[in-house]
């Protein structure tokens, strides 16, 4: 089969690979119809995630058709059209039972600090991902969800990660009615977090980024304010001033380790790799939130250390809430929101690129060329 193939930092190509097989009785093999490139894939693409082995196929956002099922699979049948949450989750460990499907303990041998994720390095379990014609899906009875009748497949595709992640970012922010919510990052995740903040009763939503085309998009898509940190000089001071010198009620970090905006963080985090990426947005979030405020982190950081003003977290009494999105927990509610038209995820898709052109697709998304917000890879046989 054809599959995306990682060759080293900034180098990916399409290559032939053996079609995946059932390795566990509760596995399924899914024929992928479309997949996305995610901001998280960029951390891999930039060579920042340890144990990203050459030859890995990325892709944790995909939908497709069940091609084959293992002997113990009961909830799926061959031919079902499914959307597959990006987390691999067993459904029966203590963590899954608590709804922490992003933190399953039975899906990743290689690390205890992160659950299994499709196509996300050996640190996240060593599974191949869905930027391919076929993909092995473990725990087929738990994760994959049959796409509801009448749902647009692009919407279904974005329900595998972006929508739940943006929603959970807002949920973890513990928004009270009337709160001022500041979202750092106007990528797909930040855009969705801004949109979802209203569902929790936010009174004012402010998005910060430096890419003008994304700010413009989020302003109309999420009906919010959007500011360019390059022209703000000091985004923290700006937020203080615009909240009557109080600080935002909640701040959301939807940027993660590939942040720009601080020379110190960029050099130590991205060039010298002395910290696990640049924690610029998190730094701003901690300093811009009010005393006793909440900082919600969905931006992804590496497994080592980052420079974070932890002293201010203590002295301001800040609550930090963070996680990988628990896609399965949120799906029922989010499907309702999409069906009711409260969320319209597919509007963020800007590019449809055949899987064969995966090298260009990665470069376009990584270098933010051609006003790219969310690229979808279309698989040939689909």
């Amino acid at each position, binding site marked *: 089969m054809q599959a995306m193939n990682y060759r080293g930092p900034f180098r990916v190509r399409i290559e032939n690979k053996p079609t995946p097989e059932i390795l566990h009785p509760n596995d399924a093999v899914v024929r992928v119809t479309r997949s996305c490139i995610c901001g998280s894939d960029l951390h891999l693409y930039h060579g920042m995630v340890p144990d990203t*082995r050459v*030859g890995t*196929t990325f892709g944790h956002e995909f939908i497709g058709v069940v091609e084959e099922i293992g002997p113990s699979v009961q909830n799926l049948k061959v031919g079902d059209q499914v959307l597959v949450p990006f987390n691999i989750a067993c459904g029966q*460990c*203590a963590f899954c039972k608590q709804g922490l499907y992003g933190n399953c303990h039975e899906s990743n041998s290689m690390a205890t600090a992160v659950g299994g994720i499709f196509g996300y390095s*050996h640190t996240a*379990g060593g599974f191949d991902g869905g930027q391919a014609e076929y993909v092995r899906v473990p725990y087929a009875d738990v994760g994959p969800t049959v796409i509801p009748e009448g749902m647009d497949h692009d919407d279904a595709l974005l329900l595998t990660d972006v929508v739940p992640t943006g929603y959970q970012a807002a949920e973890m922010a513990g928004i009270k009615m009337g709160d001022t919510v500041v979202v750092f990052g106007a990528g797909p995740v930040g855009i969705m977090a801004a949109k979802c903040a209203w569902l929790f009763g936010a009174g004012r939503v402010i998005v910060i980024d430096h890419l003008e085309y994304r700010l413009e998009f989020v302003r109309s898509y999420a009906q919010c304010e959007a500011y360019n940190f390059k022209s703000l000089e000091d985004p923290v001071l700006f937020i203080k001033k615009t909240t009557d010198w109080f600080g935002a009620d909640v701040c959301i970090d939807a940027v993660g380790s590939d942040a720009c905006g601080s020379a110190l963080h960029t050099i130590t985090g991205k060039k010298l790799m002395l910290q696990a990426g640049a924690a610029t947005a998190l730094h701003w979030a901690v300093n811009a939130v009010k005393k006793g405020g909440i900082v919600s982190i969905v931006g992804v950081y590496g497994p*080592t250390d980052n420079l974070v003003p932890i002293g201010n977290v203590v002295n301001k009494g800040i609550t930090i809430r963070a*996680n990988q999105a*628990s896609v399965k927990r949120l799906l029922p509610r989010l499907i309702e929101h999409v069906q009711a038209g409260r969320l319209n995820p597919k509007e963020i898709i800007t590019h449809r690129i055949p899987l064969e052109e995966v090298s260009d697709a990665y470069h376009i998304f990584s270098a933010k060329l051609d006003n790219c917000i969310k690229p979808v890879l279309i698989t040939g046989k689909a």
Partner: protein
Amino acid sequence: MIAEQENYKHINGWGIDADPKNEPTYPIKNYTEDDHKRINWDRPVLQQPTVEVLHSNERPGYSAVIGETLPPSGLSGKLRRYAFQFSESSYGHWLPLLLADRINELEGIADDLRNGKIPNIMAERGWNAEWKYNRLGVMRKIAVGAVAVGVIAALCKLKKRS
């Protein structure tokens, strides 16, 4: 709770202010009271690895499902095996893995060459798209490159003469 109270009856006031509603992770997490049973849940069927799979030393064995892609091999593999002797809390774990990744890239190129394939690194880096959408940037890079080469050549000439 009652049984626990028995265990701690030697401590005056044990549990007196415990408030089950003070659960800052809700609704992210539904507290099931299973945490104190530790990892003794009913496990799924265990996958038996058919290739070499490294596992974190912070767990007693493999997870029930296992990613069997790309077992460690070559020099990078040696480094990865070494790394897995250290916990996820240790630089001894992550730094060798990052180094292994860099070596693995070179091994990938060697593999390509061995298979009679010269990797098209420009294409892999998406230069088609760069040319299409950022032509000005490409030209700038080429110009900067040309100037740099010119300067170096001139400097070399000067050196030779002196």
